[in-house]
């Protein structure tokens, strides 16, 4: 299989404005994501998962190392990658449809065509009939669907998802996980998914990459060898629990080391 996304020895260092100390946030991150693969990154909070995603998106320049998408080195945002943001981050003064159009506008797609393409994805994420609603009229889960549609409409090679369900309540989150799998299977995208929830990572992914905390390092790759399509029942499967335990202990060890030092 050809890797769609490769990160090679990515380091990110930044200067703390108050103390002037240099802080290493990401330490030689190397990983690759294959075409059509769903990969999650889990790790304790503060391990630099979101920072890494920003580097992949091109919003933050890596101090050293490189990000390669489809064989080409990237250093700024491009239409080959689209982000589903942590908070829905919708433009509150735009309707659902016009929010979904936003990225298309940015790359110069004509309004009429953008609308038409956006409408297809509004339907895909199940918001048919809400295209003229404003974000404040939607629930948190619905806002995240718009957020997802806004990224999918760009037809990116890689979808970057930054803890998109973290702010949702437990029921909505599980429901959205199932929905995401349905949409993912339909859209057939390569996904890099950030989360701090172990069960979410296992349920969604082909592979889970565990980060260690401060500085962020790749600690282990865990392959999720469970057939698709998956349903929420899987969360009660013994294989699921075994994986959960394994990842949990990896993160827990790390947290203990952190606490002692």
């Amino acid at each position, binding site marked *: 299989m050809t890797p769609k996304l490769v990160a090679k020895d990515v380091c990110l260092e930044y200067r703390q404005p108050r103390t002037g100390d240099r802080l290493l946030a990401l330490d030689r991150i190397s990983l690759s994501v294959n075409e059509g693969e769903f990969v999650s990154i889990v790790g304790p909070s503060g391990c630099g998962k979101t920072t890494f995603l920003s580097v992949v998106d091109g919003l933050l320049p890596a101090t050293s190392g490189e990000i390669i998408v489809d064989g080409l080195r990237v250093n700024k945002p491009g239409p080959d990658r689209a982000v589903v*943001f942590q908070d829905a*981050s919708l433009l509150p*003064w735009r309707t659902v449809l016009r929010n979904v159009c936003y990225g298309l506008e*940015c790359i110069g797609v004509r309004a009429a065509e953008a609308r038409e393409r956006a409408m297809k994805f509004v339907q895909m994420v199940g918001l048919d009939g809400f295209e003229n609603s404003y974000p*404040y009229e939607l629930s948190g889960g619905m806002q995240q669907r718009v957020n997802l549609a806004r990224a999918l409409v760009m037809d990116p090679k890689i979808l970057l998802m930054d803890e998109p369900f973290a702010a949702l309540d437990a029921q909505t989150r599980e429901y959205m996980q199932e929905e995401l799998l349905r949409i993912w299977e339909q859209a057939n995208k390569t996904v890099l998914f950030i989360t701090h929830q172990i069960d979410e990572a296992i349920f969604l992914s082909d592979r889970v990459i565990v980060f260690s905390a401060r500085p962020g390092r790749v600690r282990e790759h865990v392959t999720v060898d469970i057939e698709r399509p998956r349903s929420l029942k899987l969360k009660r499967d013994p294989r699921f629990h075994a994986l959960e335990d394994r990842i949990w202990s990896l993160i827990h060890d790390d947290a203990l080391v952190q606490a002692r030092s």
Partner: protein
Amino acid sequence: MNSRSIADICRDNERLIIGASAFAAFLVMWEGFSRGWWATLLAPLLGESARALAIKPIFISSPTGVAQQSWTMFAITGEIWPHIAQSGGQLVVGLGAAIVVGVPLGLAAGRYRTFSYILDPFLSALNATPQVAFLPLFVMWIGTGFWMRVLIIFLLAVIPITMNALAAVRTVDPRLLKVASSFGATELHTFRTIIAPSALPFILSGMRLAVGRSMIGIVVAELYGSATGIGIMINMAGASFDTDKVFVGVLVIVIAGLLMTEGLRAIERRFDGWRPAIGDNM
């Protein structure tokens, strides 16, 4: 079939009813002082000292006096129109220039940190000074004509407009700016789609402040070598104890100010359709 009771109608129009009643009461009080109603009414109670409640119209005029004088000046002699035209022209040019200069300046300073470091010292210093103190300088530089008065109005108005536009950019949700850069939006597109819509209410409230300050500009600037204008008309009427006329001038300024602030409110409402109404469930 409309089944609203009188009580319902009163509750729905509470703001209008209470406001109008208070204003009417104020007018009656005023008229009463001017005509000695209160003095006569309270004389049995207060005796001699009740006389203090009758105030000579030369000091306070009266609502009917002002109304009569307005009718004369607007409809019969028409003498007020040149004043309004003169002051209005200065206002439009001065305030318009302040908007055209202040908004982009403030937006740029809010967006580009380095530029704000350049602008900040001037803005803070100017804001801390009473701008009318510059008047004698302006008179020395460009005389006492139309442009001097435009300049002082401009100076008074440009400060709140610039400062509000600057602050407005700083309140833009950084997450939305991140969305824009992630989608590769150009700087211009970011301004148009993210910064402008979220800054608009702040910019408009800066303009509302500027309207009030331009009115100060008009009255003060016309003290210097002006023959026509609402400001100088008020001044000359005051000097000759023509109190009715003073109040007519003040009334014109009040109404012009109200019209402009209401106009700005209307613009704000026009662009605010997306905001949840107060009391709406989020």
